[in-house]
Structures are given as structure tokens and as C-alpha cells.
């Protein structure tokens, strides 16, 4: 029975798709990865707010344009490797173009020049880009294998399968308890 519980726990932990949550080391990692040398890069400790609604972070709070964009590209909590890969992709744009908050300055340039407070402000209007050139309208992808969110460290199975397996295991457990009685 212990093995069964262990299997259930491991399955759910490994397979269920995670949502991006605040990951405290991300701002510091951006500074390190991009070798940012200007003073006060993470904005007096408010660096989380380039993605999240406030510095407390939390589930469902990465609603700023840059946060939504990074999630759409597959960034998940505590995935430093993925964060580094995404930052590298932004740096490799020639010229730098991704401007998720529509303020006219590419996001990667705002990060490296310590304009994090500006990056935290959503200037996209209802049309997706009245605040300046650029903007990154997200595109819907269909099908399990088209997901740009599937990448390093991402779960292999779709969430539905994981949920289904978890449900089955719960059912098996309930039945086992009944049999014991």
C-alpha cells in the first residue's frame, strides 16, 4: 500500500502541469545571466513585479505582459534553465523586437538597462499595442504536440491524463479502505 501511495504521489507530482508561480530567485538570476551591472537592477527588491501583480507573487498573479509572455513560452516555477534559455532567445533577436508591454522599448533592453519599473507597466491598449510599437499578441496552438510550452523540464503527459491517473489512484485507495473494513 505504501508503494501505491508513493506511486500516486510521484505520479501527481511529476505529471500534473504546473502553473507559473513566484520564484524568488528569478530576478537575481536575470541579473546574473544578463551580466547586468547598472545600479539597483532589481528595483529595490521589487523585481518580481515585472511579471507578478506584487512582490508576494503567488498562483495566478503573473498577469503582467512580460509574465504572461514568459509563461506562454513555457516558463514554469523554479525552472532556472528555462528562464536562461528564454532570456537568451530574447537576446538573440536581431534586432531586439519583443516588446510585451507595448512601451516601444524591447523587453530585453529594458531588463539590461535597469528599466524594470517601465517593463512592469502595461501600456498595451485594447487593440494590443496603442502604447507603442511592437507588442506580442499570443497565438493559440492546438493539439498536444504543438505546445510551445512543452520543453525542458515540462511534463510529458497532458494534464488530463495526469488528473485521470490521480483520480484512479484515489478510487483504488477508497476501495482498498472499504475492503479492510
Amino acid at each position, binding site marked *: 500500500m505504501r508503494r501505491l501511495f508513493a506511486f500516486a504521489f510521484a505520479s501527481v507530482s511529476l505529471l500534473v502541469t504546473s502553473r507559473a508561480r513566484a520564484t524568488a530567485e528569478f530576478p537575481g538570476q536575470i541579473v546574473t545571466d544578463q551580466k547586468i551591472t547598472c545600479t539597483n537592477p532589481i528595483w529595490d527588491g521589487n523585481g518580481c513585479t515585472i511579471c507578478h501583480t506584487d512582490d508576494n507573487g503567488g498562483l495566478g498573479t503573473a498577469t503582467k505582459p512580460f509574465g504572461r509572455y514568459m*509563461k506562454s513560452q513555457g516558463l514554469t516555477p523554479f525552472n532556472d534553465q528555462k528562464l536562461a534559455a528564454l532570456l537568451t532567445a530574447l537576446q538573440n533577436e536581431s534586432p531586439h523586437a519583443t516588446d510585451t508591454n507595448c512601451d516601444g522599448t524591447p523587453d530585453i533592453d529594458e531588463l539590461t538597462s535597469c528599466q524594470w519599473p517601465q517593463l512592469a507597466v502595461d501600456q498595451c491598449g485594447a487593440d494590443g499595442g496603442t502604447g507603442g510599437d511592437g507588442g506580442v499578441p499570443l497565438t493559440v496552438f*492546438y493539439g498536444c504536440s504543438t505546445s510551445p*510550452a512543452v520543453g525542458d523540464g515540462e511534463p510529458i503527459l497532458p494534464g*488530463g*491524463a495526469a488528473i*485521470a491517473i490521480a483520480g484512479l489512484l484515489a478510487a*483504488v485507495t*477508497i476501495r482498498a479502505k472499504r475492503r479492510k473494513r
Partner: protein
Amino acid sequence: MTWRWRRRAGAATFVMRATALVVVACTFACVLLASRPAHAFPWMIREGYTGCNTCHADPSGAGILTAYGRGMEEVVLRMPYKKDADPGKLGNFAWSVDLPEQLLLQTDFRNLALVLFPSGSSAQFQDVLMQLDQSAQLKLGRFRMNGSIGYSPPSVANGEFTGGGLGATLTDAPGQYGALVARQYWLGLDIGKDEEFLLRAGRINVPFGVRTIEHPFLVRQVTRTDIDKGQQHGVSLAYTGEKVRGEIMAIAGNFAISPDAFRERGGSGFFEWMPSNKVAVGASALITHADQARTDYDASLAPAPIWRHAYAVHARISPVKPLVILAEFDALLNSQLVAGNAENHAGVVALLQADVQVYQGIHVLAAGEVYNGHIGETSTYDTTTATAWLGAWWFFAPHFDFRIDGVYSSGSAPGLPPSAQGTSLLAQIHGYL
């Protein structure tokens, strides 16, 4: 043999059985996967059937038929050609196969010939393979594994996948070879003395409003609760009683679309009270949040986070046996935060449908709908779309039905293609094994 030995032996057997079940479940969920609407006839209340679970594996309706449902189709739905004729095994799988009672199988085929008369342009003809699905359910004790898999071909017109099921595709889409679609796949546990509860996890029809086969109805498209592609992944608990039934669902998102920002998470549920076997009234609620609104689905939305609300009341009434009235009224609210400013859009969508069974097996249907998603706003979106349906349906042979519809739509609505505006003529044939 001591009791300790017996206990250990029993535990080992249980672990082996559980492991086998998990393997079967994994195989089923990951390899077979899926489903698609087959039937969803809320007007069966005319026969005194207020609930859905007697005829459908899904307790809230639609999808694979139970053995009883197959029998009912032959006895009360299909046109009879001989008085009091015994249908025998005609309702069985493939008209004759006796399946084990634990197993349900259903193969569905549905083809649509569509002529569009868009406003201001010439007529267009389309032939659409709406459905080619294999559904299955395996019930072992109180455990259920349910799902189906289907194929959706590319459109004939341009060789690209434009057909139904986007939002339920397993394979890459669009693609020149079409796509595999998986509309439902779930594991379930029947609970209660009479198995009146069903706990499910997987990809499930969203419990909201009247569950009907007419998936293009505005009440289903606007609320994104149709049985064609509107399913979501999550966990649900359904209850079916003599006078009350309902279902609540925790929505984890549709994992057949990406990126994650578009996935809606929240909850949905409905309950229905049946004061008599000819009257059912109910209410529904749906609240979801997504980090990014589907502007491709609803062009009036901003590309920003969205809270989507829908609240509905509905009724199914059969005042006399030939007539069934279906009605649903939905209040809508889309709430967004755009560039730091709150934008709220209130709206309504309503359906009134009459189904008249002129003779067993022949139905005439008329429906009207209205939709406005931006009431009281100064934007150009503050317009009302009205649609009218008139159709005839003939259940002409065992496992076969034929249907023609004329539809007029004065405007557009979320989820409907621009070509839906204007007049459309539809002829569809459906068969199943």
C-alpha cells in the same frame, strides 16, 4: 495458514490488481484517449425521462449510449414500420452484437452538406465530415474508464485542417492530413448505494445549461460549453436523483490548447429540479479566469487577463407529449484589466426551442436566439444578433437519422465563423454502430 499470511497475501493481490488497473488506465488515457458528441436530446423529457444517465454513460447527457439507451432509441425514437414490433437485438452494437455488460462501444459517423448564403456574397457549398469517432466505456465494479477517439479531416477546399474539433485535437493542427480529436476521456468512480453519484477526472463536458446536440447554438458557443469542442480538463461530481440532478466541476483548463495563458481555470455547475416527469427547471453558473483572453474567439475582447462569468436559468417542459419547449437565459460578464483599467462587458444570450414530434421518428424543430455581449456600451459591439432555426429530423432506420435545417443569423457572435452570418441550409446524416 495464519491470518497474518492471509492478510499479506491479500495485500499483495490487491497491489497487483491496483498496478494492473493503473497500467490499463495509463494505456487507456494516453494511447486510446478521447470522444465526441453522439446524442444529446433534452427533449426526451416527453417520454418522461427527466434525467440523462439511464440512456447515456455521461450522467449529464451526451455521448456514448448505455444498453438501455440503445433499446430506447429503437422503441421510442426510431420510426416504427410495424405495430408493436419487437426490435430484438437491433439496438445492440452493430445491430446484433451482445457485448459484455461491463463494456459499451459506439462508432459514430456524421456527414454534413452545407450551403451558405452569406450576406452580400455568392452561395458556397461545403461537405463536412462532422464526426468519425469510436467511443468506449469499460465499467469494472464501481470504476469506469470512458473515452473515444476520432478523426477530423482537412477541408476539401484548401487542403488544410479547418474542420471541427479545434480545441480537442490530439495531433498537430492544422495539418494537411487532418487531426485526431479527443473530446472526452475520463476515469470515474460511482458512489452511493444506488450509484447516484459519479466522481470523474479527465476531459469532461462542462456542466452548464441545457446539454444539446445543436452545438452551434449561441447559448453554447458564447458560454463555450458545447459538446463539440468545449470540454475542459478537470474533476467533476455529478448527482442524479429522482427529483434533482446536477453536476459541479473544478476546471483545470483545456490542455489541448496552448500556450497556458489561454487556458481557463475555475468552476462550473448546474442543478436541475424535476417537479414532475414532464417539467424540469434548472440553474447554472460558470466562473473562469485566463491570463489571456481568446481574441480569436471573441474579437471584442482585449488581449489581457480575463474573468469570464456566465449565469443561466433553463427549463424543459413537455405540456403535451408531441411538444417539448426548451428555454435558456444566460447573463454574461467579461471582466478584464486593460492597461491598469477595469473593463467590464455585460451581456445576455437566450434560447427558445420547440420540438414537435409529428409522428414517432419525425420531428420538426424551431428555435430562436438573441445575443448581445456589450449591453449599454458606446462601442460598435453593442449590437444584438438574432438567429432563427427551422428543421426537420427523421429517425428513419435502426441507428440512422437524417436532418435538414435552415438557419438565419442577423450577425456574428463569439465562436461562430463570419460565414455564419446570413442564411445557411444544412443536411446531415448520422449513423452509428
